């Protein structure tokens, strides 16, 4: 992408990108901590997830504010316009990922009174690995506007959905067999659900990347306007 005649404009867009990456970095930390806290029943680590939330919210506000200013002052068009809209939407998705991480942290506090299950939350660990990879890949793809990487993330979402279904099935069986741990099982499903939602958000962000690069809205195929 060649430079704008206005260097000021270029530096504004660059600073916007940096804000998004900074926000992404924080949210990624929230996710990693929350997921690890859950599978190890580490309530101390879960608490760290909440402390990051204020920073994430602050960055989201700053991101929106800068986008609105650029739109008002520069009247961006074409790819610039698509980029700004997508950055704003990606900010919203990242903030939601942070919320889901907080949910997982709360689940951690509830399961901590139980023993860690024999399988060591293998299903959750599997889902966690995929969504962390999706999130880091989509952030990286956004920074480099990498179409292939974006499509990789979109495709990976199906694996997360499968992972959720597997956790769900396994826990229903567990509830039948050992009703002492119903609460733990419920919290585990909710955690799996949160991870599944995080996968959706990572996929959304990747769809915005496709929109920036190709100008094509790939969300909701089949409902395209004629």
């Amino acid at each position, binding site marked *: 992408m060649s430079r*704008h*005649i206005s260097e000021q404009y270029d530096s504004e867009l660059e600073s916007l990108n940096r804000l998004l990456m900074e926000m992404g970095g924080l949210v990624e930390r929230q996710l990693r901590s929350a997921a690890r806290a859950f599978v190890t029943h580490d309530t101390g680590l879960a608490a760290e997830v909440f402390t990051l939330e204020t920073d994430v919210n602050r960055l989201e506000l700053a991101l929106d504010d800068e986008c609105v200013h650029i739109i008002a002052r520069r009247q961006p068009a*074409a790819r610039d316009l698509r980029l700004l809209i997508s950055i704003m939407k990606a900010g919203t998705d990242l903030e939601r990922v942070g919320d889901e991480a907080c949910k997982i942290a709360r689940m951690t506090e509830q399961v901590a009174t139980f023993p860690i299950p024999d399988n060591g939350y293998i299903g959750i660990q599997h889902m966690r690995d995929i969504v962390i990879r999706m999130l880091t890949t989509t952030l990286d793809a956004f920074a480099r506007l990498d179409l292939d990487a974006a499509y990789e993330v979109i495709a990976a979402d199906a694996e997360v959905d499968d992972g959720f279904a597997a956790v769900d099935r396994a826990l229903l069986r567990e509830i039948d067999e050992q009703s002492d741990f119903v609460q733990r099982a419920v919290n585990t499903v909710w955690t799996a659900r949160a991870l599944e939602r995080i996968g959706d958000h990572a996929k959304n962000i990747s769809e915005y990347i496709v929109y920036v690069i190709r*100008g094509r809205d790939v969300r909701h195929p089949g409902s395209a306007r004629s």
Partner: protein
Amino acid sequence: MATERKDPGNDRAASDGPAAGGVDGAPASPERETPCLEVRDLSLSYGGVPALSHVSLTIPRRRVTAFIGPSGCGKSTLLRCLNRLNDLIDGVRVSGSVTLNGMDIYRRGVDVADLRRRVGMVFQQPNPFPKSVYENVAYGLRLQRGIARSEMDDRVEWSLKSAALWDEVRDRLNETALELSGGQQQRLMIARAIAVRPDVLLLDEPASALDPISTLRIEELIHQLGAEYTIAIVTHNMQQAARVSDYTAFLYMGELVEFGNTDGMFLNPAKQQTEDYITGRYG
């Protein structure tokens, strides 16, 4: 959800992106419109220096088509080809063809005066005659024979109303037009152009000398006239092109780089050159 990867490269948003469809249901591509002016392989040189090369495009009927591009790219030259105003310049050579509603306007024997009545033009600087408001509008009508006084009055009133100027000048029709404000004078020029009931209005930077409010008035007028007339407008103000036009043509160094529906051009142009120009980048 599995995502099928269909990615035939640099395709237009017009077909399947959020840009699809015009604002008020206007079809998304000029090819699907009724043609008004068809420019085919048009080249023009001034004293041997090329100014337009092999330009082909179809200007749809009763739509607003904007021409954008850097200074000197040939926008005014192209506009002047559409009513043969370039004929008045020495050393001009034109090849290719321009048809108006199917008639070749460069054919031998074409009545150029009649052509210019059918294809009216308004320039950047309003150029009223040092006469009354009324006479400025009636000017073109007087060249046509057999118009009765009462009909003349009606046509002047109708033209001034169409140009959204009537309310401001109804009490000063016999005063000199030179005392109108710049924005009023420009609307007077539009009234003069539409008084003779043209098919096409060519506007060459009609608002570039006006303040923002007068500019918005002219833009609103263009939008309204677009329902009745075929309008081609040259503008340096890209936001203006985006606001007023249905279709946008981007010219660069005498060549037509891209022509398509305005939503698509401003959201997702097909050509890198267009993208660079529209977003203010170095080409």
